[in-house]
């Protein structure tokens, strides 16, 4: 099993700088459908699916390896090493993948030029002096919901396209896998994601980081963005007007604008950084 087929790696675009996109809990790389083409005009773009999601190789799913985000971080480092013609890369991580990027960065900081975190959260469960947005019981409730959608979302029945008028339709091969996961994998990934706590790792990241925080996000409440900016030494917080957890889908323009501006504000690649 090659890394390419294990993670369903797709490479598009050309440019001196490589941008790696990693999706969050729930769906797969299709989530980047509105953003990736824009970046591909001027960058080399790497898209991939986390093992257990989308069109990744389900046989490679090892419940021991993926019991923590470290397993996913190892995969990310392998994908970058295998597919990146230039290093360091700009890493765009949505939601849980932003934390996978943190863990990978701590292990191999030389591979990362910048982190662009979309709706990240280092800890989803409330703690003393910290608001993550959820209680443990809430996470149990999510696991039940995943369970009760088992019949509709797993096996052969893909969500039906009802053919809304005026909508660009996705290819059939995409709808067949998009957001559809083996229920056992989905549940374990939900546990790994929502029960994890990576607050202690944040201060260790020395790579420039953009935190894109939505103004109204159930999964990453507004306090989380502020907490991260306080905790990470070289971070910038951008709050964009959006309801929901997926600004790259529901507010793609604002999201892209924040990202491009941040990249533009960084020193051009190849120049030695002075005074660090």
């Amino acid at each position, binding site marked *: 099993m090659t890394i390419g087929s294990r993670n369903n790696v797709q490479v598009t675009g050309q440019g001196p700088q490589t941008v790696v996109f990693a999706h969050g809990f729930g769906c797969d790389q299709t989530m980047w459908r509105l953003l990736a083409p824009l970046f591909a005009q001027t960058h080399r773009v790497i898209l991939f699916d986390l093992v257990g999601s989308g069109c990744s190789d389900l046989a490679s799913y090892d419940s021991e390896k993926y019991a923590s985000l470290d397993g996913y971080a190892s995969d990310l480092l392998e994908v970058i090493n295998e597919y990146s013609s230039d290093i360091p890369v700009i890493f765009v991580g949505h939601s849980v993948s932003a934390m996978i990027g943190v863990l990978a960065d701590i292990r191999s900081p030389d591979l990362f030029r910048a982190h662009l975190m979309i709706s990240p959260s280092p800890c989803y469960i409330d703690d003393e002096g910290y608001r993550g947005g959820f209680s443990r019981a809430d996470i149990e*409730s*999510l696991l039940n*919901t995943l369970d009760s959608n088992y019949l509709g979302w797993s096996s052969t029945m893909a969500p039906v*396209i009802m053919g809304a008028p*005026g*909508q660009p339709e996705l290819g059939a091969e995409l709808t067949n896998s998009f957001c559809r996961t083996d229920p056992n994998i989905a549940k374990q990934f939900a546990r790994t994601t929502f029960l994890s706590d990576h607050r202690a790792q944040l201060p260790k990241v020395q790579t420039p980081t953009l935190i894109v925080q939505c103004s109204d996000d159930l999964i990453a409440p507004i306090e989380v963005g502020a907490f991260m900016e306080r905790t990470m030494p070289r971070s910038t917080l951008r709050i964009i007007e959006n309801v929901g*957890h997926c600004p790259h889908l529901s507010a793609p323009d604002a999201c892209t604008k924040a990202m491009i501006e941040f990249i533009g504000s960084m020193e051009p690649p190849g120049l030695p950084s002075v005074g660090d």
Partner: protein
Amino acid sequence: MIGAPDDLYEDAACGLMLTSSDGLIQRVNTTFCRWAGFDKTDLEGKRRVQDLLTVGGRIFHQTHWAPLLRLQGSVAEVKIDLVGASGQPMPMMLNALRRERAEAFVHELAFFLAEDRHKYETELLLARRRAEESLTAQLVLQSELRRAGVRLKIALETADLHVWHIDGITGQVSFEDRFALLLGYAEPRPISGEEFLALVEPADRDQLTRASAEAMNPASGIYRCVYRINGTDGIQRTVLSSGRAQFAADGRCEYFTGVLQDITEQRQQQAEAESRALFAEQMVGIASHDLRNPLQGIFLAAEMLSAQSEPEKHARIVEGVRKAAARATRLVTELLDFTQARIGRGLSVVIKPIYLDAVLADCASELTLAFPDRELLYRCDIPPATVCNADADRVHQMVGNLVSNAMTYGAKNKPVNLSLETAVNGIALVVHNQGPPIPPDMIPTLFEPLTRGVETHSEKRSIGLGLFIVREIAKAHHAEVTVSSSAEQGTSFTVTFAVVDELEEPHQTER
């Protein structure tokens, strides 16, 4: 009459809702409000559809069907739990469309109550979980069973037990493949009942039949018998076969399982042990009997001495005492030597270079005195200075035993010949007598303890250890004892000693 389109909307058979792109409810129909227990005014323009979901449902909305709706324009058959005004979650099925209206995207949602479906799904999930649990339990059991099987196999192989079964219903006999080893095959292989029976020693087959009848008797059910198997490799093995039948309530045999054990070696060891025990008993008997006579002689002589006043008679009586004591001493010495040889240490010898002919000459003169009524002829045919490595006392003892043996079993009117001759490998010491030959069937065991000649008289015999000790002494000298016996030639015992280079100066033998 067909109802107005508005009626169809308001009181539709499903809950209908129109929201903006971010989920804010713009319109909702009466059916939905009735199900959820809300007033329209509580919802329209005030609540978002995701606010009506359980927390788990909201995360699921954010991570799954909201992105899907945006990318795909529609979702169908999503299962959600709606929290109504009462706070109770209501299972619903949801279809949704994303549509552009007046330059803005709106979402059209249709809800269907799914109480029964929910119950059905819950049951399915529960059944699936139970199936998974029982599968896990089953796998655990299977792996335990496998482990137990391996353990049993190791135990059986270590104990060298061979298993066989009888199917109580078909009566079919089956053997494990390793059973073939007992039948003399080099490798395990399938064995049929007929093949097995053909190899059982014919004389033992009745035992098998009787044991089987006993095993099929519900009052017993125990199978046990010992029989011999004539192996295909030509080796006969003795096996102990034991087993037990399991009976059903109606007395029919359900299963029979048995094990076979090769007890050939145990049998041999047992026979040897029995023979040793018998031998010991016999020897104790003979030794006590034979010791009684000389001791009684000594006792009588002592009484006579105390009563006797004539000094000239003393010498004769004392001579009688000396002889009786000598016999008792010889007996005790032989027993000690035997015990030493028997417990595996061998006889103790002190080997030095000696002149063999000098030792033999001494023996001859002593033995002539010991057998005053008989003739002993000694002849030396070897060079006078021939040196051998030997224990002079042991050679003495050996010659004494051989001559005594010849005197006892040889013809009484013929001399016994003692001679030293040059042989191929060294020097031969020969003791020869005339008289009836040793029966040929006795020759192979002649040197074993407790072997005796046929015509023995209690006065003359020893406890039958004489020749055994001769052989043990020869063994200790790396010498060989042979015997030849015929009516014409008489009987000769020959002991062959190796010769040492004559240059060496022999030690003076002690007398």
